[in-house]
C-alpha cells in the first residue's frame, strides 16, 4: 500500500488539492481525507467503457484503438459541418489538440460553458468582472453571498476550503466572524446555514439585484415593500451587511444563468458588486461546474480569441453564441457529425437537440459509459485525468493547477487519442479523401 498526498480532485471547479489517498495493486483503495463525497466517488471509480468500439447493425462491436481512431478520422474528414463539443472534464493539453483538430477540419468547437456559465462569459465581455482568487476569499472575506448556487450539493468543499467556514490570515476564527447570505428559490441545505436567506420568486433575480443596487447607491426610497418575493426589510438587512463588511464576495451559480434573462442577470450582479464598491471591498465569482471548464475557456481563448462557441469553418475564428453554440447548431440540424469528449450531452442537453445528435455520426471519447454512449457510433475509452493521467487544469478562479497521475493504466490519454485522430485526418486529407 502506498499513501499519496496532495492529490488533486478532478470533479468540480473547486479542484481541491489537499487530498490523501491510498493506492494498492494499482488501484485507489481509500480516500483518507480532503475530498467531499462527490470527489471521493470520482476518485474511487466506477464501471468503465472496456474497449474501443464501432457501432454495427445497431450494436457496439469491440475493436482496437487503431480501428476506432481511423473510423473517427474518416467521419470527421468526410463531415461538412462537424461539431467538436465538451472539453471540460479533461486537461488543457488535450483541449489544445482539440482546437488544432477543429482548425484542421473547419469545425465548430464548443464547450460545456455553453450550457453552464456561457451567459456569465457574455456578461463579463459586456461589463468586466471585479473578481479575485479563492485564496483572497479565504483570507479576507467576512461576508459571503451564494446567489442561485447550492454548494452543499454541487461544490461540497467550497465553503470549508475557500469561503464561509474556512479559516484564513484575517479570518482566523472562521465562520464566527463571517456572515452568510443565500439567495435561492428553494430553501436548500446551503440556505439553511444562512444568516439571511432571501427566498426569491423563480426568475426574479434581475429585480432583486436592481433593488439592492438602488439601495447601495442610497435610493431605498424608490424600492417597494416587496421585490421578487423578498421583503424590503430583508433587502435592507442585506445592504447593511454589505456596507458593514470589510470584504464581501458574491458567488453565483446556475440559478441565475439558466433562467430567463440569462446574461442580463449576471450584468446586474456585476453592477451590484460595483455599487458595493462605494462602501467596501467587494468581489464576484461564477461557481464553475466541471473541474476544467475554466481551462477550456482559457485554451480556446488563447488559440482562437474566443472562449466558447467558435466556428472555424470560414478559415478564421467566428464567435457567436446563439448561432454557433452546440444547442443552436443541433436544433437547426445543421451539423452532420460530432465528436463528444469529456462531457455528456445525452444527459445534459435539451431533448430537442439530442434528437438530432442521436441521428448523426457521433464519436465519443470518455472513460465511462453514459447516455451519450447509447447513440455514439464510435466509442473510444480514455484514461481518467487526475487518476490515470496528469495535466493542467484551471480552478474556478482561473488558477492553474496540475492534476497528478495516481495509478498506471492501459487506457490511452485524451491528448494522445486526439493527436492520433488529427494525424489520421491529415493523412486522409493528403490523399485527397476529403
Amino acid at each position, binding site marked *: 500500500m502506498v499513501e499519496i498526498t496532495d492529490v488533486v480532485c478532478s*470533479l468540480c471547479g473547486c479542484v481541491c488539492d489537499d487530498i490523501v489517498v491510498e493506492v494498492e495493486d494499482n488501484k485507489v483503495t481509500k480516500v483518507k481525507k480532503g475530498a467531499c*463525497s*462527490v470527489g471521493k*466517488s*470520482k476518485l474511487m*471509480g*466506477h*464501471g468503465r467503457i472496456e474497449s474501443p468500439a464501432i457501432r454495427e447493425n445497431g450494436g457496439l462491436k469491440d475493436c482496437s484503438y487503431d480501428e476506432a481512431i481511423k473510423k473517427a478520422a474518416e467521419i470527421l474528414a468526410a463531415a461538412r459541418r462537424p461539431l467538436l463539443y465538451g472539453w471540460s472534464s479533461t486537461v488543457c493539453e488535450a483541449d489544445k489538440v482539440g482546437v488544432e483538430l477543429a482548425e484542421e477540419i473547419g469545425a465548430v468547437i464548443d464547450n460545456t460553458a455553453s*450550457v453552464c456559465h*456561457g*451567459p456569465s462569459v*457574455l456578461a463579463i465581455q459586456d461589463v468586466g468582472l471585479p473578481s479575485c482568487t479563492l485564496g483572497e476569499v479565504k483570507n479576507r472575506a467576512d461576508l459571503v453571498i451564494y446567489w442561485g448556487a*447550492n454548494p*452543499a*450539493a*454541487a461544490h461540497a468543499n467550497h465553503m470549508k476550503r475557500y469561503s464561509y467556514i474556512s479559516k484564513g490570515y484575517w479570518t482566523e476564527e472562521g465562520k464566527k466572524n463571517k456572515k452568510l447570505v443565500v439567495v435561492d*428559490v*428553494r*430553501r*436548500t441545505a446551503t*440556505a*439553511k446555514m444562512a444568516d439571511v436567506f432571501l*427566498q426569491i420568486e*423563480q*426568475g426574479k433575480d434581475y429585480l432583486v439585484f436592481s433593488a439592492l443596487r438602488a439601495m447601495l447607491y442610497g435610493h431605498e426610497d424608490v424600492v417597494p415593500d416587496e421585490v421578487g418575493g423578498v421583503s424590503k426589510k430583508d433587502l435592507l438587512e442585506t445592504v447593511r451587511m454589505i456596507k458593514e463588511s470589510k470584504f464581501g464576495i458574491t458567488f453565483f451559480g*446556475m*440559478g441565475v444563468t*439558466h*433562467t*430567463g434573462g*440569462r*446574461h442580463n442577470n449576471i450584468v446586474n450582479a456585476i453592477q451590484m458588486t460595483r455599487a458595493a464598491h462605494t462602501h467596501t471591498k467587494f468581489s464576484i465569482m461564477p461557481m464553475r461546474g466541471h473541474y476544467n471548464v475554466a481551462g477550456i475557456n482559457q485554451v480556446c481563448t488563447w488559440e482562437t480569441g474566443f472562449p*466558447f*462557441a467558435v466556428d472555424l469553418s470560414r478559415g478564421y475564428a467566428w464567435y457567436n*453564441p*446563439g448561432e454557433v*453554440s452546440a*444547442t*443552436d447548431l443541433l*436544433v437547426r440540424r445543421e451539423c452532420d457529425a460530432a465528436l463528444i469528449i469529456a462531457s*455528456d450531452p*445525452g*444527459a*445534459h*442537453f*435539451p*431533448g*430537442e*437537440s*439530442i434528437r438530432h*445528435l*442521436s*441521428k448523426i455520426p457521433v464519436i465519443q471519447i470518455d*472513460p*465511462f*459509459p*453514459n*447516455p451519450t454512449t*447509447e*447513440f455514439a457510433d464510435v466509442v473510444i475509452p480514455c484514461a481518467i485525468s487526475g487518476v490515470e493521467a496528469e495535466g493542467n487544469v484551471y480552478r474556478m478562479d482561473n488558477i492553474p493547477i496540475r492534476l497528478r497521475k495516481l495509478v498506471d493504466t492501459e487506457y490511452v490519454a485524451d491528448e494522445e487519442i486526439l493527436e492520433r485522430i488529427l494525424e489520421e485526418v491529415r493523412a486522409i486529407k493528403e490523399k485527397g479523401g476529403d
Partner: protein
Amino acid sequence: MGTKVNLISGRTIVQGQNLDNKLSEEYFNEVATCELNKADMERLGVAADEPVKVKTSFGEVVVKAREKGGTPEGIIFIPMGPWANALVSGNTHGAGMPQYKGIDAEIEPTEEEVLHVKDLMKRYME
C-alpha cells in the same frame, strides 16, 4: 389537464456522486424523480415514489414524486439529467443557453412507468 407548475432543475449530491455512473440504479433512483412541496403532493393525490407525468410544450416524461420541504408551492424540481431535459426546449433566445429553469409545465398522476435511461435515449433515435 394537469396542474400548472413552474419547473426547475439542478444538482443534488447523489446525482453528483453518480456523474460517472449514469447507467446505474442509484442514478436512476435519484434523478428520475420530481421534488414537490407537501401541499402540492396532497393536491395531486400522490404519495412518495408514485409516478407523475410532467408535460411541457417541448415534451413529456414520467418520474417518481418525492416530497421535499423547502420547495415553494407551485415549483417542481427535477435533478439535472435526461429526465429533466426531456422537458427542456432547445430555444436559447440568441444566447446559446437553453432555459433549464423556470419552464411552464403541467403535472398529473399517472400509471405509466418511469423509463430507464436507455429507453429514454431510444425515444430520440426513433
